[in-house]
């Protein structure tokens, strides 16, 4: 029975959009704004009637609408909107499920998309029963430190690589590329040993060193790519006016590179939130002289903590995981959605133009 309901709703939505699309196209033919027409077309039946009856601003030849409401065209429209609706359903399903789970009152795996009764205690329990706040704090400190240090370390080097020709430049750039191709795990054991030698295991802030160090090579290329787009005449005319290299850097280049630096900063800030491997390996360590899982979990970051909620049989809590995951994911998702144009095209530019 449920399946028929779902199919029914699906077909209704598809027809609705088809309806709107036809209206929009007819309005366009009649010389109106297409989007305006499509919005009118969202009103079932009325929209279509309005589209046909509204006075045309243009001279219409006979059979002008055949390309819009022909059988083949209608079929294509239904298929198109069928695909889009299906895709939207597939996209929304896991997201809705995650949101729904966070409001479900069960100790098991929630098996409904949305709970029959809203239950908000998962969020309060998350803070009361797990170390969520501590994980959040750990991660936040790492993120801020690695953002600040990352930007400081990278700016000068990026500028030099973009602007100057010097001995060893090409070798350096190639070397950086080679470094980046090595799988990130390769250094894992070394980092563990390094942390062990210096007594840094289980210390969240120490991870910053690795995030900063690991990001330098990639960011050099990124900044170099961006700065290469700024015309060199700027520097040269400043040089003729007697400005030194460091003056050019601070007075001209630095203000111009604010966009790319903020991009780097955001990237640096984001990385620790979703990194699992390093914190799991380097922070989930029982330190000598300390007993109890309690202390170990205090050293975690969010990613490790969240995954422990669904992978560790003793502490499994799917609903609290969902609540925690949403708290982390929502700000990031909103940020990505707001800057999507910049992010997506930024990556493209970096890849094609260098």
């Amino acid at each position, binding site marked *: 029975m449920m399946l028929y309901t779902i199919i029914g709703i699906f077909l209704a939505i598809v027809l609705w959009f088809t309806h709107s699309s036809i209206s929009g196209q007819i309005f366009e033919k009649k010389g109106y704004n297409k989007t305006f027409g499509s919005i009118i077309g969202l009103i079932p039946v009325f929209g279509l009637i309005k589209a046909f009856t509204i006075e045309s601003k243009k001279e219409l030849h006979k059979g002008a609408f055949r390309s819009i409401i022909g059988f083949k065209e209608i079929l294509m429209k239904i298929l198109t909107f069928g695909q889009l609706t299906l895709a939207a359903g597939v996209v929304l399903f896991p997201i809705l499920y995650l949101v729904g789970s966070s409001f479900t009152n069960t100790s098991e795996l929630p098996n409904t998309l949305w709970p029959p009764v809203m239950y908000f205690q998962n969020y309060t329990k998350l803070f009361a029963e797990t170390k969520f706040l501590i994980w959040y704090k750990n991660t936040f400190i790492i993120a801020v430190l690695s953002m600040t240090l990352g930007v400081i370390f990278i700016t000068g080097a990026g500028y030099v690589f973009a602007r100057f020709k010097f001995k060893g430049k090409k070798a350096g750039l190639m070397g950086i590329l080679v470094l980046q191709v090595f799988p990130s795990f390769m250094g894992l054991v070394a980092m563990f040993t390094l942390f062990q030698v210096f007594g840094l295991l289980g210390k969240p802030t120490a991870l910053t060193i690795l995030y900063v*160090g690991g990001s330098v090579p990639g960011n050099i290329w990124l900044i170099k790519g961006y700065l290469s787009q700024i015309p060199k005449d700027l520097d040269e005319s400043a040089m003729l006016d007697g400005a030194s290299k460091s003056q050019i850097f601070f007075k001209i280049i630095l203000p111009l590179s604010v966009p790319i630096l903020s991009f780097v900063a955001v990237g640096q800030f984001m990385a620790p939130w979703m990194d699992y491997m390093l914190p799991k390996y380097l922070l989930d360590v029982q330190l000598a002289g300390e007993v109890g899982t309690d202390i170990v979990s205090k050293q975690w970051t969010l990613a490790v903590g969240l995954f422990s909620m669904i992978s560790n049989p003793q502490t499994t809590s799917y609903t609290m995981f969902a609540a925690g995951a949403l708290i982390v994911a929502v700000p990031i998702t909103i940020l990505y959605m707001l800057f999507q144009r910049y992010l997506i095209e930024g990556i493209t530019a970096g890849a094609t133009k260098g």
Partner: protein
Amino acid sequence: MEKKTKHVLKAIASVFIPGLGQIFNKQFLKALFFFVFFAAFLTIELSSGQYFSEFDPYDKLTEETGALFTDDFAKNFYQMYQFQKSIGEINLPEFEAYYATVSSNGFTMRELIDYTAQDILLASTPRYFLLIDDLVISGSKASTSDTGEINDTDLIIGEDDAAIEAKEFLSIITGVSIFEKNDKEYYRIITGEGESRLVYYVNVNEPSDIIYDVTGYNVSTRTGSLYLEQSTGKIYVRSTKQLSVLETVEYRYTNVADSADYYVTADSLSTIATFKSLVIKGAVVYDNEGTIYVKYMPELSYQMVNGYNKTPFSEYLRNYITKRFRVSTSSYNSTNYNRFLIEVYFSVHPELRNEFESNFYNFFNDRAGFFVKGVWAIITLGTTEKVTYNYKSLHDPLKSVTFTEDGIQYAGVSGILDETPLLGHVSSYLLILGLISTLLMAYFIFAWIWAVRDAYRTSLKYSQTKVYVSDKEWFLEVYSHGFEYIMILPALFVITFISIMPILFGFLIAFSSYSGFDSDTGLFSWVGFYNFTRIFTFGEGIPFAETFWKVFVWTAIWAVFSTATVFFGGMFQALVISSDRVPFKKFWRTLLILPWAVPALISQMAFSIIFSEKGIINSILKNIGFGRTFYEVFQDWGILGVGYNPQTMTFLQKIFYLGFDDIQWFTNANNIWFVRIILIVVNIWLGAPYFMALMTSIMTSIDRTLYEAADIDGASKSQKFRFITFPLIMYSTAPLLVMAFSGNFNNFGVIYFITQGGTGAGDIDTAFAGSTDILISWMYTLTVSKKVYNMASVFSIFIFLIVGSVAAWNYSQTKAFKED
């Protein structure tokens, strides 16, 4: 020619002391500048080493266990002895004789220890003794109580070696697992450790009969305890066989001399009343044509009994120590006691003391400075194995026990250990240290070469122009040229020590034997290309070769298909959205880009929940359908709800097999390709939106006039796509396609967070790889939970070569590369 020699000489001067050549060039400030580098180098080297101070290996022992009793302790001991002797409580003439020979320079702790060792050794002579002769029956149990007395029948090692050799001793195997089937019994033999561990089974009666698989055999455990049949004096070995987990235990008594003579009983004591258990002190039992000898080796100490015999002196000494500990002002604790035991143990076994002194005093490890030690470390990876000194055999003579003297009870000292482990050189630490010091040294060497070249060039220039560049001018010039280098330096340092060093380390361990749980705190060594040959060596040890190729093929398939589905899925969606039919393009785009914006880690974890066996997808499929639910339909088809049976199932049922109780999306062990395909499909959700968004923005930026021109030429829609849209999209996304390929090749998240490696992850039979593991996630398991570091490193080099060649080709195509 003569002139050139002058320049070379100046350069050579700078080779020995950077800055010296500059002094000859009369550039004193510059000389100072270079000399600073040299001085810094020397300072680091000298201050980090112990070149000028004494080094005592025993300091290490003190650090790890505790300090030895001071010499005053020995003196006080002797005073106490004299006092108690004077009141007639004790008399040990041998000790006094010894004291007389050493006392001239005062009695030291070392001398007391040496005497203790000598005294203990004298009382415990290693030998073979006839078990029957030494049996003392006490109560219901028989036991051997070796009091140190030597019988006529004893063969003393060192004295009667010829007689010992004449006898053919056959060791009685005791305490091993035995597997049994159809009256055939096999011992389990385990050789090697860690990866080279080999398990095989040898027939009890026929050593040439060796098997490797004991499926179907029953386990029986020989406890190895010896029994004496009192009426005949025959000796039997008792083996225990567990018939079932909870139920009866069966005992089997086998005559050591004649295996055909045995008794089987369900109860050891009541049934065979004449059998007496023998507790044998510190011994290995040997059979010589039916006569049982026990080899008495005092240093072998066993669970129940301790090796060396106590002597009147040792008893006096240990009680003295106990009393000293019980004095309220005593500053000693059990760590000092343990140290004392180790020292006595060393004197009992001088070869161990020598070994300790030579192993724990290594010039390079213990005295050399940062740079010299680093080079040594990389070359040798350390030389001293960690050791554990087990001095339990000294417990009988020397371990403090509770005793009463003059009506006062002195409680024994607690916290006395059986053994003390001593960390040797730790190869992984040494390698890290070696890499850090060598990389840092590279910077100094760079400055050094600079100094040498400068000395030569300045000299040459002077001979041509007769003008020395002034120091000030030179520094200004260096600064203006050096601006670039100075700016790069911080980043360079970070890259050197946080990117290059770990990768170098990871790279180098592929050529080492670094693997196994002990290797983190022990030694490993260079093994050349051995680990690389293992991926071509089939059928030996842990099946790395077999698994590697399987995983590699799947990784390649995964990378190709997941990239293709994501890329073309994204392109298709973009085309649909950009169609004229679709109003509200922004809405659709925003909606469908959501998966890209949600952090991948979160969505991957969500998918692992959604597709779990009790997850929502299964519960939906269980409840909905056209008339019959989907579950029922699958069950009708015989692909769900039945056990996997390749004999009875049809081909289609096999390839569509879903699971037993529920659909096993990611845990299906019988149908791994089903799991893998699901994974590729799920990955579309994660990856396609990015390409969709990318391509819609590219499509909107395509010049409209191109299409208009095509319209005029009468091109159809599909022609416009083929000749305009598609080539333009490919032109700007091809590099990203290649990047996506490398990304998916190393897509750890999808594999690990959704499937955790799939079924079989962590099994030794598959070399720890699960059914969905790709190289990178397999590597992660190998590194993090299985500690097979060297093989993990070999695989990462492999990944590097593959991804690297793809990326190198890709980068060589970019404009950025060509410009520079």
